[in-house]
C-alpha cells in the first residue's frame, strides 16, 4: 500500500532544485513513477514529499547545431514515435520500442529511467556509446555530465542532491556513424545489454565506443575493447570481435542473479557485441 505523502507542484526547475535542497532525503522527484511508485508501494522507500515535475514541459525533442536535445520527461512512447529520432537516431528508437511493456512506455520517462539507475535498464548503455551528455540543472546553473560518468553504482548517479536531470544531449550521428544496441534476457528486464557506435569511413573503423549494461550494477564503457577495433578495417575489426567481447564481458562487472550467472552474462556480452557490430554495419 502506498503511504501518505505530500505532492509538491513546483512550476520551475529552480523551484524543484530548492525543494530538493530543502527536504533532502525526505523528498524525491516524481516523473512517470513507473519505478518509484512500485518501490514505495512495496515499502522499500518512504518519502514525505514527492515533487511532481510532469508539468514543467521538459518533453521536447529538437535538433540544434549538430546535437539532438531530448527532454528528460519524454516518455518512452514519445521517443519511439518521434519522427526526428526515427530519422536521426534509429538505434534509440529501436531500443525504446522494446523497453519493458506498453504500459511502462506510456508513463515512464527517459529521465526517470536514468535517474532511478536500476541496473537492468536499457537507455544508459546506448547513451554511453552515443557519447551523450546529461544536463544536471539547478535552475540558476547547469552542468553537463557525460553518460559514462553519470552512473556511479546500482541505483546511484552522480547527480547532486539538488540537481535535476532536464535534458539529454546526443551528438547527431553523421552518415558514416554506425550504432546498434542489442539486449538479451528471459525475464521482463534484460540480463545483458550491449551498445556499439563507430565511424566507418572508406572501409576503416574509427572512434569506436562500446558499452555493456544490465549485467553488473551499472553500465560501463569499455575503452580496452574499443582500442582493439579502432583503426582497423571492417574485416580486421570483425576478426577482433571475439577478443573485444571477452574483454567487454569481464569489464561489465557481471554479477550472478536471477537473470543469469556471472560467466553466462560475460559470455552473452561477447555474443551481443559481435551481433551488434554486424547489425550496425548492415
Amino acid at each position, binding site marked *: 500500500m502506498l503511504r501518505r505523502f505530500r505532492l509538491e507542484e513546483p512550476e520551475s526547475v529552480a523551484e524543484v532544485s530548492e525543494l530538493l535542497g530543502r527536504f533532502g532525503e525526505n523528498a524525491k522527484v516524481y516523473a512517470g513513477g513507473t519505478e518509484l511508485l512500485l518501490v514505495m508501494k512495496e515499502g522499500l522507500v518512504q518519502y514525505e514529499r514527492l515533487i511532481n515535475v510532469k508539468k514543467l514541459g521538459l518533453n521536447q525533442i529538437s535538433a540544434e547545431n549538430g546535437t539532438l536535445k531530448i527532454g528528460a520527461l519524454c516518455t518512452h512512447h514519445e521517443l519511439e514515435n518521434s519522427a526526428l529520432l526515427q530519422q536521426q537516431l534509429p538505434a534509440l528508437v529501436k531500443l525504446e520500442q522494446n523497453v519493458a511493456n506498453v504500459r511502462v512506455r506510456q508513463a515512464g520517462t527517459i529521465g526517470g529511467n536514468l535517474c532511478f539507475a536500476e541496473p537492468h535498464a536499457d537507455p544508459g548503455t546506448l547513451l554511453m556509446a552515443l557519447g551523450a551528455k546529461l544536463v544536471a540543472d539547478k535552475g540558476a546553473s547547469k552542468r553537463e555530465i557525460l553518460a559514462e560518468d553519470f552512473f556511479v553504482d546500482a541505483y546511484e548517479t552522480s547527480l547532486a542532491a539538488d540537481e535535476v536531470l532536464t535534458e539529454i544531449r546526443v551528438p547527431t550521428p553523421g552518415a558514416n556513424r554506425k550504432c546498434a544496441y542489442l539486449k538479451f534476457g528471459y525475464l521482463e528486464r534484460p540480463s545483458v545489454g550491449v551498445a556499439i557506435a563507430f565511424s566507418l569511413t572508406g572501409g576503416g573503423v574509427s572512434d569506436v565506443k562500446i558499452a555493456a549494461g544490465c549485467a553488473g550494477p551499472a553500465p560501463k564503457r569499455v575503452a580496452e575493447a574499443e582500442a582493439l577495433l579502432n583503426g582497423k578495417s571492417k574485416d580486421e575489426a570483425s576478426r577482433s570481435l571475439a577478443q573485444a567481447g571477452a574483454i567487454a564481458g569481464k569489464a561489465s562487472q557481471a554479477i550472478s542473479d536471477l*537473470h543469469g550467472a556471472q560467466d553466462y552474462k560475460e559470455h552473452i556480452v561477447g555474443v551481443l557485441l559481435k551481433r551488434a557490430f554486424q547489425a550496425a554495419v548492415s
Partner: protein
Amino acid sequence: MQFQKEVEILAPREKVWKFIWDVDRFIACVPGCKEAKTLEEGKRYAATLTERVGPFKVEFPTIIEVLEREELTHIKAQATGADNKIGSRMKIDLDVNLRAQDDKTILGFVAGVDILGKLAALGHGIIKRKADQVLDEFAQAVKKKLEGEA
C-alpha cells in the same frame, strides 16, 4: 550467500583476540554498525546494523550470540535481526579463525548471510555485492586499527 575472507595483520594473535572481545573498538570497524552493547559478557551482544544501496536504506536491530569459543583460535557466532519498517529479516552465521604466522596473525572469517523479505526484491546479486564490500571494509578496518596501534 557465502563469503570467505582472510586478512593478514601485523600483530600477535593475543592482541587480535583481545581486540575482538573489546566490543566498542571492534564494532567501530563494522561499517554501518551502531549502538552496540553487551547483554551477557562473552555470550550475547546487541547492535544496530545499517546499510544502504542507493535510496534503499535498512536498519536491522541485531542480536549477536556467541555459540562456540576456543581461546585464541576460533569463534562461532550467529547474528539475527529484522527491519520491520521494510519487512525484511537478516541472519548471519559467522566463523572467525585466528592463525599465528611469524609475527603476524591471519584473521579469517566465513560468513553465511541470509536476507529474507522485501529487501530481497533488490536482487541477490546487488545484495551479495554490497555484503562483500562491507566485509572487505570491515577486514581492512580491523587491520588498520590493530597495525596502527603497533
